[in-house]
């Protein structure tokens, strides 16, 4: 079981209400710095962090892990980005 530093990036319902296919979020990740994260919505919701593309619930996995990063959606529809500790 991999332990991550999870950062709340956006809320799925709020993103849906904007009605756009993509939106850039500028977030100050404490301990990392200010980062621009692109959230896109196609068949699934995805986040682009740096050069890593993370898709929510890909392969029915929540959290979905890729390399040393992860993406997770909780019961409040908040989407979190997992970074290595």
């Amino acid at each position, binding site marked *: 079981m991999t*332990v*991550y*530093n999870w*950062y709340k*990036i956006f809320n799925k319902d709020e993103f849906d209400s904007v*009605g756009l296919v993509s939106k850039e979020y*500028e977030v100050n990740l404490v301990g990392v710095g*200010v980062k621009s994260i692109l959230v896109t919505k196609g068949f699934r919701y995805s986040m682009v962090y740096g050069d890593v593309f993370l898709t929510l619930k890909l392969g029915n996995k929540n959290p979905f892990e890729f390399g040393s990063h992860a993406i997770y959606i*909780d019961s409040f529809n908040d989407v*979190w980005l997992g970074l290595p500790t």
Partner: protein
Amino acid sequence: MLNGISPILIFDFLEGASVDLGSVFNKIPVLKTIPTFPLPSIPLYLDEQLTGLYVDSQTKNIDVETEMSTNPAEKNPIVIQKAINSLITVNFKAVQNSVGMILLNLLCDKILSGLLNGKYSITYLHTNVTLFGGLLHSFSTVQNSENDLFNVSLQLSRGKVNSTVQTLVAKIAQPFNGVIPGVPGQ
């Protein structure tokens, strides 16, 4: 004159004293710096007889940028509009060494020194085309070899410079350590 009425330009400048009195009056409760104060307005009539400036044409245009974004639910596209500028362009001819031309050159040069802190404004009045508290967008003069007239183009923009700089604060995300958020260390 343009169509029988002379347009008028009014230049307003703010001056601030550069003396810092803090070191002199440290123990006396007075203002340490003198704030800016307005100088008397400087009017300039664009009239061939008064100031030697003959107005050829005057235009006013407003530019707006329109962006449309589609969305996957096939609703109506979202339309976002952004104002680009609102400009008044005055083209006129000036006699070489006319009072108006000399004054206009000096005032525009003075504006250049005040550009970085927005301590100036220009008002333009001519019938239904008015601009109060505007900014200099561009100023150009062309002289050719055929005569001794200057062809002058003056563009004024609507809007005031913001006196404070607004900075966008990024949303802060605190880290939550764990296998999944909400369940620490598990």
